[in-house]
């Protein structure tokens, strides 16, 4: 590379670096998240304010039950406080079927704000965090059928979210099974009844605002409706009674073999399509020209 060209390349590379870093820094500035939005995104799946316990306790008037310093310490590292033998922490842990509350990112910086929000919401007759109204009418076959259709995707979600089969399997998912974005969380056959999804109300609220990171991101702008949640819970509840685990290994082998077969068919197709072009057209041309060249 000639020196002037090298200098110009160097200048372009420097400009690229500066512009990229500038854009990344400006664009990467965290958009301040409202405390209510934070609660909605991180707390609502397991707690209500005045709507009764879900996986975790009802937070109405929690600041009257324990002092703020203790509550903030607990929010920062729930497991450490529970394991320290703290009597009150042990009690709520046992009431929550011994499920540890996760330490949430960002909670340390907004502990006071969250407690202010809970205190303010506790004074309202109807908090916005009262939880999803869950019907207690018995599930019907129609509910279970609709739940399966929603899981498979044959009934599209109203808000346009991806079907459950994209990342999950059930006992009766067709031949090649469901998705496995996170393999250990793929099979949902027995998900209903697990400690954190112990009853219909807790599981319904969890589905309405799923807190697991990938689902939270995927459904943030595509929330399930109350009817969709109802049908899915009916399907999961039924599966947990009679389901057997899916067979991911068999499905994966069948998938791999199908892909390999497809690739082989494509290679033979290329040979068939271009045989004439390469063997009947080019070779005689090259040979004829080579002969003429003598």
């Amino acid at each position, binding site marked *: 590379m000639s020196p002037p*060209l090298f200098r*110009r*390349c160097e200048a*372009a*590379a420097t*400009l*690229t*670096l500066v*512009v*990229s*870093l500038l*854009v*990344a820094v*400006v*664009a*990467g500035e965290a958009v301040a998240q409202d405390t209510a939005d934070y609660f909605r995104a991180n707390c609502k799946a397991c707690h209500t304010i005045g709507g009764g316990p879900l996986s975790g306790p009802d937070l109405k008037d929690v600041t009257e039950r324990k002092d703020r310093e203790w509550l903030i310490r607990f929010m920062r590292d729930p497991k450490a406080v529970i394991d320290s033998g703290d009597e009150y922490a042990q009690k709520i842990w046992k009431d929550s079927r011994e499920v540890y509350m996760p330490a949430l*990112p960002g909670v340390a910086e907004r502990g006071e704000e969250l407690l202010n929000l809970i205190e303010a919401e506790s004074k309202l007759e109807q908090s916005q965090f009262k939880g999803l109204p869950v019907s207690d009418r018995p599930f019907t076959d129609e509910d279970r059928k609709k739940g399966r259709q929603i899981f*498979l*995707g*044959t009934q599209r979600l109203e808000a*346009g979210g*991806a*079907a459950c*089969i*994209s*990342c999950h399997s059930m006992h009766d998912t*067709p*031949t*090649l099974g*469901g*998705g*496995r974005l*996170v*393999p250990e969380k793929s099979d949902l056959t027995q998900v209903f009844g697990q400690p954190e999804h112990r009853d219909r109300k807790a599981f319904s609220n969890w589905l309405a605002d799923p807190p697991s*990171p*990938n689902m939270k*991101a*995927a459904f943030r*702008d595509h929330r399930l409706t109350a009817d969709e949640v109802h049908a899915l819970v009916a399907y999961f509840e039924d599966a947990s009674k009679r389901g057997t685990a899916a067979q991911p290994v068999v499905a994966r082998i069948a*998938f*791999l073999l*199908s*892909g*390999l077969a*497809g*690739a082989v*068919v*494509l*290679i033979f197709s*290329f040979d068939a399509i271009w045989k004439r*072009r*390469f063997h009947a*057209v*080019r070779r005689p*041309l*090259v040979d004829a*020209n*080579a002969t003429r*060249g*003598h």
Partner: protein
Amino acid sequence: MDKSFFDQFLFVILPYLSLFTFFLMTVYRYRAQSFSYSSLSSQFLENEHHFWAVVPFHYGVLVITVGHLVAIFIPRSILLWNSHPLRLYILEISALAFGLLTLIGLVGIVIRRATTTRIRKVTSPTDWILFAMLLALVVSGVAMALLHPWGSSWFASNLTPYLWSIFKLNPDITYVTSMPALVKFHIVLAFLTVGFFPFTRLVHILVIPNPYLWRKPQVVRWYGKKQ
């Protein structure tokens, strides 16, 4: 290194660095060295194994790239198509078949370049780096299809919004930070390849008009006596 800073670097700074390098350097190279916009075909130097390497690779990678672009620009069409398990399976098997085709072709290309003396002599270090990156990209893509199905759906629901957040200068990495390591590796490598693109023979993709796919048969041969 703090995990959140590491994620910010990989999924915010690196993408912008790659995209700006791509746009600025492709334009700059075209203006400074127009005649270097070439695939630098080696068909001239070896014509026996050329077909079995280059054709599967190009048709495989074209279909896979178009698939990614459809998922980025019209994700709802993918989710609509996948709304029946049979159609989802057909799409995923087809994508896997074309992914394997790309892999077979790329392995053929690398073997051909490594084993044919006169092609090896015209293969630059940049070419070898590019082949290594493409190989890692394709292997990780095929591995993802097998280990983390069904990518066509979860790409549309999680990765498309992430990519659009980058394009709209409002990056949201919550879509990717909890993805499996293999998926993160594939994303980072894809951005690195985009950034490396202007310095490689890949620039031939941008040469317009680009009639490689439909032009009439073209003979590349030695002039006069066959060598």
